[in-house]
């Protein structure tokens, strides 16, 4: 055997061992710590799992970037997703959303329904964060609300909970997130923007803001939150309109 082929063999061998043990370790960790996203199967599952798992491994509790007030986008931006145009929503809007309710149920000890004044009475937080759309554009606003974790702690999340599914008043718009993102300090039930009430084009009266993920996870016109241990109970799309439309469930990219 010449040196060149011996060397080639050693490098090929080392490469193969490194590759295989890397995959082995990753699979082991993923299984142990729940690092596989709901859309972790199929031909794109490898990429999705690597992204989701690596973010959870190196930055489970990291905070999305926040910005100084000088960077708030002016004029404020709202995308094209508007409220339902039916009479029911118009009536809600005309009555200043007095009858708006946020229902919280599922794997919780005390299912509840909150009015907007109730949500506003909870400890208020603000964040100046960016909404980035998967299309490429972005804008920054100051968001005011109550952390979702505060409300989840009020209703008492049961230990087997793994995901939170949340619904818009728009019948086909819903999303789901894991408990890390649900309990994350920047995940807000948002009722205000830039020092005023959250405008309807921006998702008012209530929007879930989740700045560690792309805009499509920040569902507007929020009416219902349910805690679950299994997204399969919500159908093929796993409680995510994005997945139903062929998009990734985890949008932290």
């Amino acid at each position, binding site marked *: 055997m010449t040196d060149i082929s011996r060397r080639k063999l050693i490098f*090929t061998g080392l490469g193969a061992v490194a590759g295989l043990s890397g995959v082995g370790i990753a699979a082991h960790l993923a299984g142990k710590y729940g690092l596989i996203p709901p859309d972790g199967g199929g031909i*794109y599952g490898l*990429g999705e799992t690597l992204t989701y798992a690596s973010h959870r491994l190196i930055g489970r509790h*990291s905070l999305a970037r926040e910005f100084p007030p000088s960077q708030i986008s002016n004029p404020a931006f709202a995308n094209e997703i508007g409220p339902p145009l039916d009479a029911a929503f118009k009536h809600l809007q005309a009555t200043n959303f007095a009858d708006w309710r946020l229902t919280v149920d599922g794997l919780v000890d005390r299912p509840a329904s909150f009015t907007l004044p109730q949500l506003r009475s909870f400890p208020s937080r603000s964040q100046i964060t960016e909404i980035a759309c*998967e299309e*490429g554009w972005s804008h920054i606003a100051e968001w005011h609300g109550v952390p979702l974790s505060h409300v989840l702690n009020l209703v008492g999340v049961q230990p087997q909970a793994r995901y939170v599914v949340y619904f818009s008043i728009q019948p086909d718009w819903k999303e789901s997130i894991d408990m890390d993102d649900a309990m994350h300090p920047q995940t807000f039930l948002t009722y205000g923007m830039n020092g005023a009430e959250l405008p309807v084009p921006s998702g008012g009266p209530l929007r879930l803001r989740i700045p*560690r993920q792309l805009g499509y996870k920040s569902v507007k016109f929020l009416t219902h939150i349910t805690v679950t241990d299994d997204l399969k109970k919500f159908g093929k799309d796993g409680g995510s309109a994005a997945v139903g*439309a062929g998009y990734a469930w985890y949008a932290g*990219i």
Partner: protein
Amino acid sequence: MATLRPAQLSVEVTAPGSAAPAAKSAPRHFVLVRVTHWIVAFCFFALLLTGIEILISHPRFYWGETGNVHTKAFFQIPIPSSRDMVQTGYNYVLPDQNGWSRYLHFEAAWILVLTGLLYGIFGFFSGHFRKNLLPAASDLSWRSLSAAIADHSPFKRPGAGDASSYNVLQRLTYLLVVFVLFPLVIWTGLAMSPAFTGIFPATATLLGGRQSARTIHFFVSIALVLFLIVHIVMIFLAGFWSRTWAMIAGRPAAQKERT
């Protein structure tokens, strides 16, 4: 020819008493270089296709942290869009293909990054970078470089020596692609991730913000496409099957280069 250094190949052929000339017994490319080359080529094709697909959903570019249709564009590409948000001047909207495009873009990016890491570790420890890519100091003088450029006329077929060693222009170009363009395109890609920039904010702030990162990502991709075009043209000029076969099997397929 100044750029031909057959002596460099002899380090790969150390079998004492071997009668065969270096160029005949040493493979043109290491097997790991060949395997990673084709994985990267495949991933790059997927990334380019899906990148264009994602781009057309918002063919406007900005500088700084934020950018949208209410802000001034750095520039806009005059193509139709797959969404109706951007005023393109076309009275139709292309079908939206962002779902699978984004899935495939990030999957191909992962495979490219992991393959690139393997290549980088191999290239560093095997001496591939030092021997095959790093130009000799003497080749970097203006006189040598201008001679190499003059020698690189597109109408001139490469000499036999070019089949076994990279010339100085190839070396500089490959170094640029491996150590500047690919790292930059990966960095600017990561700088667009809301979760990754939360973990490492400097990935975005050092570039001037998310939209700057997106704009640089676009220009670096253009640079990589230009490299690819020149790369393929050069392969055709040098003998397509001979050079392509060398990157598959390790040795050129040309008759005169066979034993």
